[in-house]
């Protein structure tokens, strides 16, 4: 999902500089509010909720004309929203915290993945069922979100790191080939690719061990939220409807996403959306609504990043989110 790249900043700087001028001059219209949504990653079922909100007219009903734009390895949604190049963005809450630390004035207004989708992926036959099982095993990692949260999970579970052989490497081939026993991964999509290649997999999710961050957190620039609270509320409410619809009508959602992304594998996308349901629906959302979130989890995420993610100093954490834009649950 998030694979930062050398050209991240350079590209987004250029794009933002250009698009920022456009955004500033556009102002906002009275008929339908024109807003853009910059996804954290390439368009796939990870963004099924937004696609369905647009497809089924939930955005239009809310008086919004939403342009859904893909992210990718060279596109940084946080910087693009912070500069005003895009109105809304999605990313994991950790990335918003990092962005805030670098001076991006962002505010999280909703969070659709309740469980952080990064963790440890292994083949089922290796028998890694708990974090402790990693002792004596080879674990491939590369820097980034999943590794930071995996380290926090291993520490919390009292895993002796001197017994885990951690190596830097990436690619699922090394796992299937048996070069390593486990690897850090995004566990909503990577296990499916490995399974489609004919291997049974097992995953460890830090979120299951109380080490969590939100993914598909929706954020906007603080300034925009203050000036257009109504637009933000309408956008969040329509997005929530989109996610609820996508989860209730998965085949339709997959078809809509495939229409927009021709290189996607239908089988993989179908299975990913089914798997995603566990990340989106939780006892918390059943009580508070889809995409609802709690500030406590965001604070916990900051703690993980301070300890394992290389975040140098705490940020003004209360300013980085606001639950005021969430729809009231009736």
């Amino acid at each position, binding site marked *: 999902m998030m694979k930062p790249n*050398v050209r991240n900043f350079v590209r987004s700087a250029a794009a933002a500089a250009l698009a920022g001028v456009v955004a500033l001059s556009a102002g906002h219209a009275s008929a339908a509010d024109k807003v853009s949504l910059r996804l954290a990653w390439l368009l796939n079922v990870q963004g099924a909720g937004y696609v369905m909100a647009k497809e089924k007219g939930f955005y239009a009903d809310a008086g919004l004309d939403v342009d859904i734009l893909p992210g990718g390895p060279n596109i940084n949604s946080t*910087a693009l929203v912070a*500069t005003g190049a895009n109105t809304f963005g999605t990313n994991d809450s950790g990335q918003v915290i990092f*962005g805030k*630390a*670098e001076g991006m004035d962002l505010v999280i207004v909703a969070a659709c993945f309740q469980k952080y989708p990064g963790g440890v992926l292994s083949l089922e036959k290796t028998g890694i069922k708990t974090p402790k099982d990693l002792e004596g095993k080879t674990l491939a990692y590369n820097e980034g979100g999943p590794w930071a949260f995996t380290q926090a999970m291993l520490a919390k579970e009292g895993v002796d790191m001197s017994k885990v052989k951690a190596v830097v490497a990436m690619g699922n081939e090394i796992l299937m080939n048996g070069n390593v026993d486990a690897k850090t991964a995004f566990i909503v999509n990577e296990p499916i690719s490995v399974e489609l290649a004919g291997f049974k997999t097992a995953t460890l999710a830090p979120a299951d061990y109380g080490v969590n961050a939100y993914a598909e957190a929706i954020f906007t620039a603080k300034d925009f939220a203050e000036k257009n609270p109504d637009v933000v509320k309408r956008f969040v409410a329509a997005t929530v409807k989109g996610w609820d619809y996508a989860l209730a009508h998965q085949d339709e959602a997959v078809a809509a996403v495939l229409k927009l992304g021709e290189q996607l594998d239908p089988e993989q996308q179908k299975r990913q959306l089914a798997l995603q349901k566990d990340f989106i629906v939780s006892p918390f959302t059943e009580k508070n609504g889809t995409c609802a979130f709690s500030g406590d989890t965001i604070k916990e995420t900051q703690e993980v990043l301070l300890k394992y993610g*290389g975040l140098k100093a705490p940020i003004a954490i209360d300013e980085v989110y606001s639950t005021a834009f969430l729809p009231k649950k009736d």
Partner: protein
Amino acid sequence: MTEATGEAAGETLAVPPGKGPGRLRTLLSAYAPAILVFLTVGFAWEAAVAFFRIPKFLLPAPSVVIQRIIADAEPLAQNVFVTMQAAVAGLILGTIIALAFALIFLMSRILERALFPWAIIVQTVPILAIAPLLTIWLGSAIITIFPILVNTVRGLRSVNRQVFELMRVIGASPGQTFREVRVFAAMPYTFAGLRISAGGAVIGAIVAEFTGANLGIGTVIVNAGYRQDATMLFSAIFCSCVATIALFYVVVALERLCLFWPDARLES
């Protein structure tokens, strides 16, 4: 990009060194224009960031970058050192492979026709895509082979007919002809290739580090990306540029050492 600036810098070095007080003036006239442009660009950048209030997560000012480099000098130096080790190892390995194939091509036209397409294929593979499969120095080696190979083959064949006839007349063996004529004819070409490859070697190492390394400028760049730390990103880029330029000058120095006879240098 690196090659272009390196090439330009190489030209300025080619100014004949003077003696005594004239020497300082020569040096000054050689380097002053470059330094002036550097300073102008630096100040313009600084002023633009201040004037347009460009946030530091988009484009940090040079002063901010320099402060970061000073503050993090130790880890940066350590990482640059690791990358440069890999780059130099890759450059040496790439040079050996290139020279070996140049010799094979010289000896057999058939083998050349059979194998040359592979040299082109290796050159055209998008290295980022195969980076996870490579060790770091191999990434450097792959990038360095082609320029050296092509130039050396050309150099080896650049000897004109009369020279061969002369060697035959004086009764030189093929081995002697190779050692005394071909090698010297090829050397300026090989070094021209090496100049290009020096910059490529560092880039190859950095790209390979993106996906599988504990240390090195490539990992610093990936980490800076994850932490959205544009200042660190620019610091890493700056340090690797300086190191690459240094490597380029090492190659230039080697070249001057090896090409000692008059008329040896291709460009000057």
